[in-house]
């Protein structure tokens, strides 16, 4: 439940820095420490932590989720402005520091809309109702006759008007409405939600004024750069800093102790150079002579490790989902397919490398950093340095991407340690080499799939074995199997109606820091699952989209719990967010309609499809690929359909989907780092490639109109891209890519050009394909 209480004026001023008017306090279910105290105060209307209305009529909205390109500051403001009936130009956005009173601030896992859509509406509706009540009181009128419209309250019978600013003080003295009795605005009154609204941060971004982590500038700042052991778990044995200290601008050299293993959110340790500018600090590093104790992970080698995972995946693993009798059905299958898929470690490679400013003064620490989790950072730093959490302030800057990397606090702890130890102001900047070599990598994995079909090509058997090191090993010394939240991203939630199936997980021991990246573990699991269903279709001689549609056998909802599967569903209620196969079929049908599925293509062109649910959203994509005779790939067109429930900010959802296509193509074509002797081999953007403008296809993004609860948008567009691309390549060349990144040298034309991909043709038995245009609008 959501508790609404008024903040005392003193608290409100402290929290919001407001001058006068109404301040409301909403304590979210997860906010244990911050029950706002009741008590009437004159002045600012502050009905909760999320908004204030001052006597000048300025509405200040507090956004407590981090902004990293998803547009959350704009999106939250759209919700609140509509619910408050505020006028957009009179709304200010304020970024919250990390504090449990704001509830969940961990901006990770595509959850912001799911967690905050309703609470924000309630927060703003409370304020609106108080303003309306204040106006009714002033006019001695019935509340029913008063309505909030465009930053004013209007007395409908007489047309009298009072502005929000004029009402703020009186409203602040009124009781806070019971959230259960609030009337939310009718969607017909929304002026911002669902419309194209330019991002609030756009003007600063195009003029270079937006402050990211490394842009924070305060007088007396020193610049730090840290040489860390190339191998995870290694330690400094000894070092010689004589040459380093001779570099102009270098002021100090100091060893940061290695943290206990596994290091979790804490620093890896190393040798820090403190200098008068960033370049002097990195030049100083180049002159350091460090002898490392490299530790046991020095033997880690991607090639040998892959072979280990392959050996494991060919043996039975722990069963995590089982239905029917796979072994009997597979051995009795008329058509059998077996494939193994490999995905290497993925670094986050955020455009802005990790960076942080830490200021230690009078026993208190102020951190300004691009963090996805300011509360988590505050907790990590205060525990690491033995400070009271009330003596640590973490203030998020803008993030030049997050992708999960900036939900880890190692870089913030490094800066904080230096500031406290040296007693000053430190700006820590990671180099790109630091970023690629000392990341938290999305796990390397090998997957094996076995599929069986009857003589009619109907899928009757499915076995999916996954082997990858568990994300939990970054934090826990025990080296156990991945948990349900990990294989619940694309393995156990397999949506096809195949009567005999088994999912298994095998053990892989960790050698590097692991952390989910964009798309989560669906990145690799959807690559295997969405590729394999395409391989089964090919083996059965069927059109892949039709085969997929049949395999879904929807509309239906899958109740994994009823079949004994531990399925966390991304932490959401399965009642509110069921695994809805009907929505998978719907996005498939939608993308087939829009992409011209089945229309003829040129020789060595192919079309590939992939459909996947992740982060509670449903994505389908059709990619057209052209493979040149030398194996070079070009991508003329991509159609992506996303069903992420109700959409507040359609332009940002569209932008996230365009981004997902580019991100997914980069992953498929170039993604991944490899380790040799325990160290990363691709150390900068010369050897680690990202997608560039020249690979960008013509993108058509389609958002499914929906009234379903909002679900994820940042992640779920990504996992479908790589399998659809590889499926398209198979259609164009007959060659199946099962190892990422794609080795285009395997795609050279060494045979006569195949005929164009056949049109979808008549639907197979019992396959009800709806013609284009017949899709019922869901909105």
């Amino acid at each position, binding site marked *: 439940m959501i508790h609404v209480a008024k903040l005392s004026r003193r608290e409100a001023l402290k929290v919001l820095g407001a001058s006068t008017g109404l301040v409301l306090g909403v304590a979210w279910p997860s906010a244990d420490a911050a029950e706002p105290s009741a008590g009437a105060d004159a002045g600012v209307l502050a009905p909760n932590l999320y908004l204030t209305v001052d006597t000048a009529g300025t509405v200040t909205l507090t956004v407590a989720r981090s*902004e990293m*390109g*998803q*547009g959350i500051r704009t999106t939250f403001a759209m919700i609140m402005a509509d619910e408050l009936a505020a006028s957009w130009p009179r709304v200010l956005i304020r970024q919250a520091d990390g504090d449990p009173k704001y509830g969940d601030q961990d901006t990770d896992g595509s959850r912001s809309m799911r967690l905050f859509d309703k609470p924000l509406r309630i927060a703003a509706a409370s304020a609106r109702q108080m303003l309306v009540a204040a106006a009714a009181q002033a006019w001695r009128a019935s509340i029913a006759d008063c309505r909030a419209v465009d930053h004013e309250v209007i007395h409908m019978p007489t047309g009298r008007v009072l502005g929000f600013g004029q009402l703020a003080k009186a409203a602040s003295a009124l009781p806070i409405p019971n959230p259960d009795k609030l009337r939310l605005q009718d969607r017909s009154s929304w002026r911002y939600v669902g419309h*194209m609204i*330019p*991002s609030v*941060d*756009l*003007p*600063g*971004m*195009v*003029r*270079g*004024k*937006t*402050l*990211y982590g*490394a*842009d924070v*500038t305060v007088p007396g700042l020193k*610049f730090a750069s840290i040489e860390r052991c190339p191998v995870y778990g290694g330690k400094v044995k000894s070092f010689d800093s004589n040459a380093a200290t001779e570099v*102009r*601008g270098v002021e100090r050299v100091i060893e940061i102790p290695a943290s206990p293993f596994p290091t979790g959110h804490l620093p890896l340790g190393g040798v820090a150079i403190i200098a*008068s*500018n*960033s*370049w*002097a600090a*990195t030049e100083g590093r180049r002159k350091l002579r460090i002898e490392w104790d490299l530790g046991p992970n020095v033997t880690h080698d991607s090639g040998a490790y892959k072979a280990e995972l392959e050996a494991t995946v060919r043996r039975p693993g722990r069963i995590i989902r089982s239905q029917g009798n796979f072994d009997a059905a597979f051995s009795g299958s008329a058509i059998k397919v077996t494939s193994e898929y490999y995905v290497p470690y993925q670094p986050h*490679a*955020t*455009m*802005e*490398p990790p960076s942080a400013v830490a200021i230690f003064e009078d026993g208190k620490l102020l951190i300004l950093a691009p963090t996805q989790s300011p509360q988590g950072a505050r907790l990590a730093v205060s525990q690491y340095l033995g400070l009271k959490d009330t003596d640590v302030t973490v203030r998020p800057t*803008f*993030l*030049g*991407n997050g992708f999960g990397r900036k939900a880890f606090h190692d870089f913030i702890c490094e800066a904080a340690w230096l500031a406290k130890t040296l007693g000053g102001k430190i700006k820590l*900047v990671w*180099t*790109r080499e630091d970023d690629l070599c000392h990341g938290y990598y999305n796990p390397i994995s090998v997957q094996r799939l076995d599929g069986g079909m009857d003589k009619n090509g109907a899928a009757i058997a499915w076995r999916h074995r996954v082997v990858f090191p568990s994300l939990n090993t970054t934090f826990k010394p025990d080296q156990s199997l991945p948990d349900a939240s990990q294989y619940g991203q694309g393995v156990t939630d397999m949506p096809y109606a195949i009567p005999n199936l088994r999912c298994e997980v095998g053990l892989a021991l960790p050698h590097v820091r692991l952390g989910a990246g964009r798309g989560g573990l669906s990145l690799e699991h959807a690559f295997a699952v969405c590729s394999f269903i395409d391989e089964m279709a090919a083996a059965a001689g069927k059109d892949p989209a039709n085969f997929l549609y049949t395999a879904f056998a929807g509309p239906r909802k899958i109740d994994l719990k009823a079949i004994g599967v531990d399925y966390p569903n991304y932490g959401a209620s399965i009642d509110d967010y069921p695994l809805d196969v009907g929505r998978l079929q719907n996005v498939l049908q939608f993308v087939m309609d829009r992409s011209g599925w089945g229309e003829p293509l040129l020789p060595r062109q192919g079309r590939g499809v992939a459909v996947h649910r992740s982060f509670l959203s449903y994505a389908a994509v059709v990619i057209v690929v052209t493979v040149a005779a030398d194996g070079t790939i070009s991508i003329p067109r991509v159609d992506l359909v996303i069903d992420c429930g109700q959409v507040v900010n359609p*332009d940002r959802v569209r*932008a*996230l989907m*365009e*981004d*997902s296509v*580019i*991100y997914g193509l980069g992953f498929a074509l170039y993604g991944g780092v490899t380790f040799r002797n325990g160290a990363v081999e691709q150390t*900068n*953007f*010369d050897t680690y490639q*990202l*997608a*560039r*403008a*020249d690979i*960008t296809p013509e993108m058509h993004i389609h958002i499914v109109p929906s009234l379903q609860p909002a679900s994820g948008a940042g992640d779920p567009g990504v996992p479908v891209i790589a399998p659809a691309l590889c499926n398209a390549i198979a259609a164009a060349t007959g060659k199946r890519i099962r190892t990422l990144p794609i080795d285009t040298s395997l795609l050279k034309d060494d045979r006569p050009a195949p005929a164009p991909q056949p049109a979808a043709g008549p639907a197979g038995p019992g396959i009800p394909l709806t013609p284009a245009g017949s899709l019922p609008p869901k909105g």
Partner: protein
Amino acid sequence: MPALLINGKEHSIDADPNMPVLWAIRDIVGLTGTKYGCGIGACGACTIHLGGKAVRACRVTLAEAGGQEITTIEGLGENHPVQRAWEAHNVPACGFCQPGQIMQAAALLKQHPDPEDQDIVQAMSGNLCRCGTYQRIVAAIRTAAGAGPGAAR
């Protein structure tokens, strides 16, 4: 000491002449719109204009830049046609690479007031965007190019 002429203002920089001009701009002059992304000229986040041409500030030393006119995103003006086009297309997502993208685009249009799409893609392919805004960037450059004769200067 090499002096730098940045956005029409002269700055005397007390630093090693081998220092890349990026760090003088960011850490010494304090103009932080120019971003560090890789340090090897492979991402374009630090793109500035040197003598009117787009260059990577991480690859030009103080010694090399001395005496030449430097323009950073802060010196492009508040209302350059490229900035307006970027706003019209809601281009930035996280925004980190966008100062570099905008400086690259402005230099392109100065040289090529009416570029073909392939010219745009070629000119912009040295600038990475991890938010994948490339489609919007190309569209915005088209808009900026169409903003009228001389609009992009």
